[in-house]
């Protein structure tokens, strides 16, 4: 019986710029069901962080409740982590981010955790443009509590127990666009080629980066009649563009034909190189993204890839003009500027 993963790794694993191998970004062995899409997303997160040469201690993992929210245990063992109450991950993220803007914040949530109990929190995190990556591992059901339809389940979708969902679904991507999210993408757990660069781009984006990742629940929601099953998703995928993430120091190596490609420069100097597959779509134009999404939906397609990015994004700290340094590094002299400063302030009110 094995719940133990051997500690041997491939002896020829390559190292990234800071001397770490992929193994240095792993977590504990997963206890999710065999074949759960969530595990693949964990794998993509590991790969993305490894490729970006991120120092694990510079990242904080935050989550709520659900199979999806358990995954932070299964990646980045050397990072910070906080597993909050159901649907309350955005509050914790907000507090942490206000206290220390130096970390990279990675929120992991489920469709239940976000679209039902945590909807209010989610909405306000977008509105405040919290500088974080917010991944919803979207399986259309409450996996942890045995597969009840969630609010993202499509009307008519059938789960394992045969129940047909009578309600309309909430499209989190459409909502995020509508609410003014500054980075919006959608992907599929079974497509790491697309997911890994999307996560990297999201981590480089200064502001709220939302990723809706379809992630089949093999145990409760993988019937062919479910619109969140491996078969259905694969059959209906439609990408906006192929995507390559090019870190700041690296050269762009892929050349696409004129007109079909677009380079998006990110705040930190890195670039996203897109080879457009969708017509009449510009990733920096929110309106075109909304239209494209609507079109795809009406044709029964699942539109994936980067949908929208606001290159002028100004995050919460910028909007609030708050202190640059983490609160725990502020000394008494920083916090108590003295009587003269108080006098100045008082003076301004007179």
């Amino acid at each position: 019986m094995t719940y133990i993963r051997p500690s041997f790794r491939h002896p020829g694993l390559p190292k990234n710029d800071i001397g770490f191998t992929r193994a240095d970004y792993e977590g504990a062995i997963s206890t999710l069901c065999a074949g759960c899409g969530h595990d693949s997303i964990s794998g993509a997160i590991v790969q993305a962080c490894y490729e970006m040469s991120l120092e694990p201690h510079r990242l904080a993992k935050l989550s709520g409740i659900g199979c999806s929210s358990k995954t932070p245990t299964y990646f980045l063992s050397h990072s910070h982590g906080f597993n909050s109450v159901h649907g309350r991950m955005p509050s914790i993220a907000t507090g942490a981010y206000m206290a220390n803007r130096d970390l990279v914040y990675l929120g992991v949530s489920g469709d239940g955790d976000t679209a039902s109990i945590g909807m209010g929190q989610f909405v306000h995190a977008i509105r405040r443009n919290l500088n974080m990556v917010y991944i919803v591992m979207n399986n259309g059901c409450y996996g942890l509590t045995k597969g009840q339809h969630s609010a993202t389940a499509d009307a008519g979708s059938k789960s394992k127990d045969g129940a047909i969902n009578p309600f309309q679904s909430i499209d989190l991507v459409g909502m995020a666009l509508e609410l003014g999210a500054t980075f919006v993408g959608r992907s599929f757990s079974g497509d790491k080629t697309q997911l890994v660069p999307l996560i990297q781009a999201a981590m480089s984006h200064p502001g709220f980066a939302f990723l809706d990742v379809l992630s089949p629940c093999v145990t409760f929601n993988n019937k062919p009649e479910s619109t969140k099953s491996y078969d259905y998703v694969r059959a209906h995928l439609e990408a906006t563009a192929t995507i390559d993430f090019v870190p700041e120091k690296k050269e762009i190596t892929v050349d696409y034909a004129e007109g079909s490609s677009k380079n998006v420069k990110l705040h930190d100097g890195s670039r996203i190189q897109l080879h457009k597959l969708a017509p009449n779509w510009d990733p920096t134009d929110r309106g075109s993204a909304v239209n494209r999404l609507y079109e795809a939906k009406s044709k029964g397609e699942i539109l994936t890839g980067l949908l929208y990015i606001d290159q002028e994004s100004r995050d919460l700290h910028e909007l609030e003009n708050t202190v640059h340094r983490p609160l725990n590094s502020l000394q008494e002299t920083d916090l108590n500027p003295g009587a003269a400063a108080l006098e100045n302030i008082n003076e301004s009110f007179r």
Partner: protein
Amino acid sequence: MKPTNIQDPEYFHKVVDCQYACPAHTPVPEYIRLIAAERYTAAYMVNWESNVFPGILGRTCDRPCEPACRRGRLEDEEEPVAICRLKRVAADHKGEVKHLMPQGPFASNGKKIALIGGGPASLTVARDLAPLGYEIHLYDEWNKGGGMMRTQIPAFRLPETVLDEEVNYILDMGVHTHFNHYVSSMRDMLDKDYDAIFVGTGAPKGRDLNLPGREEADANIHIGIEWLAGVAFEHIKSVGKKVIVLGGGNTAMDCCRTSRRLGGEAVKVVVRSPFKDMKASPWEIDDAQHEDIPIMNNMPPKEFVVENGKLKGVIFGNVRAEYDENGRRKLIPTGEPDVFIEADDVIIAIGQDNAFPWIERDLGLELGKWDLPVVNKVTFQSTLPHVFFGGDAAFGPENVITAVAHGHQAAISIDLFCQGDDVLTDRPGPTTNLISQKMGIHEWIYDSGVTNDDRYAVPHEDKRKTLANRKVEVELGFDERLGFKEAQRCLNCDVQTVFNTSRCIECDACVDICPTSCITFTKNGEEEELRERLNAPAQNTDQELYVSETLPTLRVMIKDEDVCLHCGLCAERCPTSAWDMQKYLYQVTKAGQTCSNLVE
């Protein structure tokens, strides 16, 4: 790449690195699991079927399996499983085994076979053919069977009791022995009307070194293998205090260590080439050094110094090695002054040659280059159709396990020949068996966990005791507890990862869980280019890539077999059982075996 044909018996065989490397293809992981289960007798019999001399080989095998062991590739410092010494655990702790072996008397099939030479090659032929009803006549010049295992391998490495036991298992099958009988004429043998003759006379001639002083000092200059045989038969009981052994192979190691036990106090091994080029096995060199024997390299001997008709020592030059682009070595004198080393005795251990002075050259039995017989590499048949060769006699000096492997194959040929079948085209293939190990979601019939333990060292007897008596065995062997722990280090490479394309839903679970990044789903391509773009680079081209049929996403599954831990996690994580762990038992078919009478 084309999809892998796992029906080819050699595909999974190759994954079992140790078994593949073993000349006799012993099912290594199979017997190691039996040891871990404390089923020593069964473990012994698995060995006995393949390699005939488990107790002997568990002490003396050249162990080509160990450098091949997958475990040794896992990390820089990681060492292979102690496969050879585990074999000894089976032999040391087994129960009664004789009743599990073929029981005579065997009904005669009317055919008579002569075996010339009583070493492991001939004994293996006897073991395979006697139960089939052949009348076996074994000739050897010494008074007992075993060949060089008896005359050369010193008792402190191989106790006589172990040797006698395993040789007798065979002789007791009704073999007619003609000991103390040197065969001096092949013509006479051919005249005796044997249905077939097997020549297993080894490579019995030790090389000499004709340097100035060689003849005058003859009384104190010895040829290594002759000297060791003299010691084994107790014609030689002592040696001088100062001994020089010339040569860097295993014979030199046995000579120097034997000298230490016969009165040699200052024993030195002097080798003309660099340390790293020495032919001796690393563990034999270690053991010699542990017995206070210095090894001096880059010193070719120039002259035996004789004073008043008696040996005084040897003069050596100094060289350094240079290698050309083909890796060919040249020893270049350094110009430093020659070195004189004192010696009471010198033992020359610089190699062995084949010698067939007793084979007349007009018999139609062709001898080729270096006086080696012309022998077919598959059938071991000579140019006289009913004469077969095997062991060191066939292609030059090798080792015991190679002699055994030859013996098995020669026995098949002799049997085919005597039954009127074609020795080449009628040869049987291996028997194979692939069985799922699944018992539950996380449960396998085999112990799939991977321990991190380092290789355990075999305990040694106290040096004072072993140097005082040449018959005291140096290695004590693993006890049951250490044997178990070492057995647990085996990765069970015979439990294969078997992939079923039609079941795979491409969820990536196996890719994500695999500790050693063996599995990749990607677009197919040419092998060379694919090896570069797998999840971990597949640089060991000796190991195969396992390629699936094309999947629904038009990709293929590619598994690099190189450092798979056989941990079964891919199969545990697979939601559809597209992966399964299946035990692959590969057995070399032996003479007279048909499907119906195979063991297990």
